[in-house]
């Protein structure tokens, strides 16, 4: 199958069973994100934004439909193949950073590289490059508890980009930050998109964060209801 675009979803639906009730979280989603695009995904709570992001990251499976990411139908990959695929192809940023508290910033960023065949020197160079991109090379030896929320999120971004994935998926990356830190993080994501040509899919409630995207999509009750250029651009 010839698939255009970096990310392509065809007729994707996702259902959950809660008690005996069947919940239709996503319904018949058609989505195409091109290489180098910066797309914001907005919508009210429970609309299925995070679920959609999880499906694209391969950490959840669709009930029906196909998910093509860089010409791979990830719905067909098994657990082990998905783990390996995620490691190389996708960087994930979470709202609450989820850094390992007992590891330094350097060691947290290094984690994805431990899964690759790479010399210690090469690993170290790549970690320092990633930390430099997020402006935290001076904080490499600090534990997460010694960093501010904004810095922790920047370490999480470094961890997401250290393996040089083409796609970055960010789930409410500014949701737990003050305005200043949120701006820094969004500028960083913008730079990753513009300078490093990363394809970014951003889930957010915040219109200011969405303003950094080149395109904004809206999800309501599990369906993509509109696709517009950001009004802030």
């Amino acid at each position, binding site marked *: 199958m010839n698939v255009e675009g970096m990310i392509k979803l065809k007729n994707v639906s996702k259902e959950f069973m809660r008690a005996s009730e069947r919940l239709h979280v996503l319904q018949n989603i058609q989505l195409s994100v091109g290489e180098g695009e910066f797309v914001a995904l907005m919508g009210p*709570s*429970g*609309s*299925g*934004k*995070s*679920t959609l992001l*999880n499906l694209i*990251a391969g*950490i*959840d499976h669709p009930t029906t439909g196909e998910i093509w990411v860089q010409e791979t139908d990830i719905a067909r990959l098994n*657990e*082990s193949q998905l*783990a*390996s*695929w*995620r*490691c*190389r192809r996708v960087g*994930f940023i*979470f*709202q609450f950073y*989820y850094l*390992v*508290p*007992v*590891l330094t910033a350097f*060691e947290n960023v290094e*984690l*994805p590289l*431990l*899964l690759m065949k790479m010399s210690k020197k090469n690993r170290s160079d790549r970690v320092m490059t990633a930390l430099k991109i997020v402006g935290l090379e001076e904080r490499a030896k600090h534990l997460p508890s010694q960093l501010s929320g904004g810095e922790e999120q920047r370490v999480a971004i470094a*961890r997401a980009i250290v393996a040089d994935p083409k796609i970055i998926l960010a*789930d*409410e990356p500014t949701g737990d930050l003050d305005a200043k830190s949120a701006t820094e993080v969004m500028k960083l994501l913008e730079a990753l998109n513009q300078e490093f040509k990363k394809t970014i899919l951003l*889930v957010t409630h915040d219109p200011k964060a969405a303003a950094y995207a080149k395109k904004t999509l809206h999800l309501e009750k599990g369906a993509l209801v509109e696709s517009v250029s950001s009004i802030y651009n």
Partner: protein
Amino acid sequence: MRFIRFILRNIFRSKKRSLLTFLNIAISLFLFCALDCILSTLKNFIHESEQSLVLVVRDKHSTFMNGGVPLAYVDEIRKVPGVLDLSTNLFVIVQPKKEGEEPIFTISIVPQGIDWMRKDFREIPQDERDAFKKTERTVALVGKQVMDRYGWKVGQMVTVDAANVNARMEVKIVGEVPSGIAADNILLHFDYLSEVLGQPGIAHSITLKIASRDMIPRISSAIDKMFENRPVQTETLTEKAAFSDFMSSFGPIEWIIRIISFLVIISSVSITANAIAMSMRERSREVAVLKSLGFTRRLVLSLILSESVTLASLGGTLGSFGAYFFFAFYGVSLRLGPFSYFVVNPATLAVGIAIAMMIGLLSGLVPAFHAAQLSISNTLRRVG
């Protein structure tokens, strides 16, 4: 190797919990090694006696250290085909002169028996054995532990009193028993003890040196048949059987030790499993994030098992070596009935560490399996 730092950091994430788990395993393994050390000391004696070319003749109807075999039987026993040599024996508990000192189990033998009766006797240097055989009757070979305990030296004259008997002995130490059960005993000449105790004409037992193990049934039956219609009937046993009979007075000691060891290990597995499970519950989101980064189920399983096995191995190593050094320094002065000289042998040490690793593996298995199976999306799900 790449994950060693990650594993070590996680082990000591909650220092208090890790320390308590570590101590629990260390204490369990210390107890295991200590109990096994006692058991193996007893079993070693049985094993050694299984190989020996020695039989013991005793009064069929009396218990240990009571009654006796008439010395009149000795010449007849000596003539039984296959009997190469024999020693008449008396046993007594003696007390050093100073009050409050520990009693010492004392064995008296025919001096020539020192060369063949028991393996630990043969470990006495030849010149000291010769001195015991060749000089006068009032000489003694004293176990190393007794020497150490009382600060006695070879060449010294010592005075001891027989417990419950109004008898005093003054003997010259001509040598030292370096190891084995006799390392906690005193060896005297049979004639001298017999005279001091005022028990002429009987021996608590007669030890026979025989030509071959194949002859055991024939010799035993010939001797016992010879005296079946005499006032004192005999019972001729292998050294192992005599020992086992003696051991029966301690009750089912092996089973008790094994059950206690097993319960100690089970308790340790439960406590460690609980600590690991608690740690994993706290880290479930972190595990989900690791999986989102590309950590496979197998890797997550391996990492968590490595944490529990490493922690348990460290604790087990401390406990096992703790027991090893404890018994190396203090085991020589510990006593259980006539047994002493308890040492943790290298095999017990290796088994102890292997058990610690098994504790880590068993206690980490369920939490690790749960973590490996964790759904990333369910764990990280939030309203969105």
